[in-house]
């Protein structure tokens, strides 16, 4: 059983009732769980969340009935010709959309009874319809994706996902929202039962802009870019980092990822190594690349080719590097940890519980690299930090706000480093070389598969996933690491097509 995330709730009410106010932004955050906040086992319902479901539903219903054109069109009948009949028509149609399947008889009866009760409070027809909407938006069939499955031919141990359940599986995985008319029509016609039918729908759906939203959300979460807009820096030290810059940096990385995945080569390698990006004139000025031949001149974002020795896909974009630098000094540990954890799925072990390090006060005359040398001087630190710091050092040419620098504290930058305990281990001269190595790494591809698997299935990985993962890794490698192909492959696994029976 999955619960709608804030992202999915916003998308769902947009597509259900045309509500674009993103009401779920006010919900308390999801428990992070598997890293994507959609881990069904980790989610619990606080009093605040339950209240926010009430508040959001109320706001959505009120906006809907106040929008006369939309209300009239959606209602689909004229209450003047018979209020009760019209209410029943609406309840059946709207309920099926909201619940992503036809209403059961008891469900319908409850909603009809609610309509009657509210009407009996001397409240008008519209208000009673609004109350029905409020109830639907808090019902488990709306907030949760409950699956029961149906008998699978030739198996007594697993159940097949039924057609309406599959419509929702596909739409929430690939679009982050409820099924469209084509999916529901296919479900009614029982045409979502075979892997080929599911694949055909998945391929169709990837051509829709809603798929971009999901892929963007996934990368934003995986690469930790959600907070870029909130980065603030010391204005005395970084006067160029104006309040506009974080938003532009976020756009830059979004535009870059969108382009590579949907219009460009579509593979992980290009994400890590491309030496172009997307900027407007203001952002190009911020980076100091306004002088490049195809630098954008206006306020809209355009592709810009960058100096190949300084750029390596999203890894050298300032949004990421600044977000890995809380404060004013670069942090090689956080930058190294990003590579190990988010790209390689191989972070170092945690510090031993008894380790109690008392760090000294900082020496203002040193460079970042010199300050972090303390880690290598102490064997108890270096056992783990050797996996982190030498990776982070390769980014030293990028300052706390992600711009190129040649010196740190007046001394020339030393960006040499090393990556160990991976399939592409070895010394590297700088971040661009590091990115080149990562682009050749099977472990990076495997990590991407792992993350898509946990995101799309909405749970942490289990031992039972080993076979699924192996087949996805193979398919991903054969497609040359193309993310779109991986998304289709994820709909073809047993884990996506079947479920375990309910153990009461």
């Amino acid at each position, binding site marked *: 059983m999955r*619960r709608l995330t804030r992202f999915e709730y916003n998308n769902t009410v947009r597509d259900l009732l045309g509500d674009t106010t993103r009401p779920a932004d006010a919900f308390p955050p999801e428990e992070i769980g598997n890293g994507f906040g959609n881990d069904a086992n980790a989610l619990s319902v606080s009093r605040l969340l339950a209240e926010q479901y009430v508040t959001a539903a109320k706001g959505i219903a009120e906006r809907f009935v106040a929008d006369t054109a939309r209300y009239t069109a959606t209602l689909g009948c004229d209450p003047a010709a018979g209020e009760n009949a019209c209410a029943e028509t609406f309840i059946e149609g709207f309920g099926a959309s909201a619940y992503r399947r036809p209403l059961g008889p008891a469900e319908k009866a409850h909603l009809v009874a609610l309509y009657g009760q509210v009407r009996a*409070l001397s*409240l008008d027809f519209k208000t009673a319809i609004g109350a029905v909407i409020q109830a639907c938006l808090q019902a488990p069939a709306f907030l949760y994706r*409950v699956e029961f499955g149906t008998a699978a031919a030739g198996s007594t141990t697993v159940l097949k996902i039924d057609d309406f359940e599959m419509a929702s599986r596909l739409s929430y995985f690939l679009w982050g929202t409820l099924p469209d008319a084509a999916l529901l029509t296919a479900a009614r016609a029982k045409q979502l039962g075979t892997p080929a039918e599911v694949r055909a729908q998945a391929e169709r759906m990837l051509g829709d802009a809603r798929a971009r939203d999901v892929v963007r959300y996934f990368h934003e979460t995986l690469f930790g870019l959600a907070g870029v807009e909130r980065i*603030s820096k010391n204005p005395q030290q970084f006067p160029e980092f104006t309040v506009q810059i974080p938003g532009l940096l976020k756009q830059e990385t979004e535009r870059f990822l969108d382009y590579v995945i949907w219009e460009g080569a579509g593979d992980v390698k290009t994400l890590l190594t491309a030496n172009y990006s997307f900027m407007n004139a203001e952002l190009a000025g911020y980076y100091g690349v306004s002088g490049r031949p195809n630098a954008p001149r206006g306020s809209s974002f355009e592709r810009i080719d960058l100096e190949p020795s300084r750029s390596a896909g999203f890894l050298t974009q300032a949004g990421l590097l600044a977000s890995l630098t809380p*404060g004013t000094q670069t942090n090689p540990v956080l930058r190294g940890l990003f590579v190990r954890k988010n790209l390689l799925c191989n*972070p170092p072990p945690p*510090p031993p519980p008894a380790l109690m390090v008392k*760090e000294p006060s900082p020496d203002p005359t040193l460079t970042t690299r010199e300050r972090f040398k303390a880690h290598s001087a102490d064997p108890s630190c270096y056992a783990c930090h050797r996996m982190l710091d030498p990776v982070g050092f390769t980014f030293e040419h990028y300052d706390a706000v992600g711009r190129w620098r040649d010196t740190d504290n007046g001394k020339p930058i030393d960006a040499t480093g090393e990556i160990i305990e991976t399939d592409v281990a070895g010394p590297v001269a700088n971040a661009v070389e590091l990115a080149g190595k990562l682009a050749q790494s099977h472990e990076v591809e495997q990590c991407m598969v792992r993350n898509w698997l946990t995101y799309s299935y909405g749970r942490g990985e289990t031992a039972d996933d080993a076979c699924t993962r192996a087949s996805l890794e193979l398919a991903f490698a054969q497609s040359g690491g193309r993310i779109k192909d991986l998304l289709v492959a994820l709909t073809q696994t047993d884990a996506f097509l079947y479920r375990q029976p309910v153990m009461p």
Partner: protein
Amino acid sequence: MKSPSWLLSRRKLLRGAGGIAIGLPFLEAMVAPRSVGAAAATAPKRFLVYFKPGGTVLENWRPTGTESTFTLGSIHQPLAPYQDRLIVLAGLDLKITAIGTGHPHAKGMGGVLTGRELPAGPYETCGGKAGFPGGTSIDQVIAAKIAEGTKFRSLELAINWPTDQRDGGKASPTNCINYSGPGQAVPPSVNPKAVFDRLFSELGADTQMVALERAKSKSILDTVIGEYQDLVPRVGQSDRAKLEEHLSRIREIELGLQANANETTGACVKPAEPKPLGDPDAGREGAPGDNTQKNPSLDARMPELGKAMTDMLVMALACDLTRVGTLQWVDSQAYNTFPFLQLFDGHHAYQHDHGYQPDALTKIDTWYMTQFAYLLQRLSEVKENGVSLLDNTGVLFTSEIQMPNSHDQTNMPFLLAGGIGGALKTGRYLDYKGASHNNLLVSLQNAYGIPDATFGNPDYCTGPLAGLV
């Protein structure tokens, strides 16, 4: 003079609802629990938790002197006007963090109010993958005892939370301190405007309108409850637990519909409406549009947002909308800067990421104490039954570690303030010489009429602290 706000005016409500077509049985149900309290002539006890992350600089925190005659440390100077309303606690250790999984920051967050360790689980804590603690936090335990009949069982507010926004700001053991049950984190509200709407929308509203709106809400919630009840028996065990948890929250909300929330009496006054979080001009100095030297981030707005949250929290107590609350300034990641103190690195950088910097930390902690003093001032200004709200409240001030650069969790920086309705004798400096902090949680629950002699993990608890309550 009207009746105190914690007594529901039965007459007013019935009269107000009389003009509309609501069945009387509902109205009876609506007033019954509160009208029983007619005998409650004294104001209720309240409980607050006040949290700031990152421990403290102990040498500037510790008072000097004896139990009754002591001089406050430099960090506590802003509290000088309230020294007689304080208990400075020394020698209490977060012993529970010796066991379990996770980084000390996360263990401290999970353990400080629950007295429980973190189990293994799915959450990266920079020190092992941990889960949420397996117990209920002290605020929720006390709420179950004293918050009966209020509209909100408890309030959890935060100012700048969570400061690690890289994942979109999700709830984890590094940022949650309140737990309504084992593994059930209660993430705080962070948007002051949303808090204002939630708390005070009914305050001062027309009684008839409120009654009508509540009748409608009750019908909707009854329908929703029916849907959950129908589904629960059809799903598997773990899904059932999730749905039942959700169902119990909806029932709580429905119960809250019976509580008085629209009368303004005595000290209960609707606070100023705070500016929304997205307001581009809020918290800025200088002309709007002059962005070059301004910092509109939450960091810069902390003084303004903290004051707004404090004002709302105090009024929520004064209006008896709730009796238990938590104000968490910042989570334990503490990436926030303090531009208004001219400190532009993250709090955590001053703790140890960039080396231990006690001067900056002392400045930060002294600022936090100034904000804490403001809370005590506001509580002391609210008068009820001839005493102050502070007299009826207990405030626990805490952090998740003690020593910023080593994560040492002995000698935790705990303070108590307020009288808990006469249960707490203040103006004292007490040293418990290495006792487990679980014992403090026992004393607190005892002060609120919960007689249990243990709290949290019993292996780390030996009973109440001698002489505290």
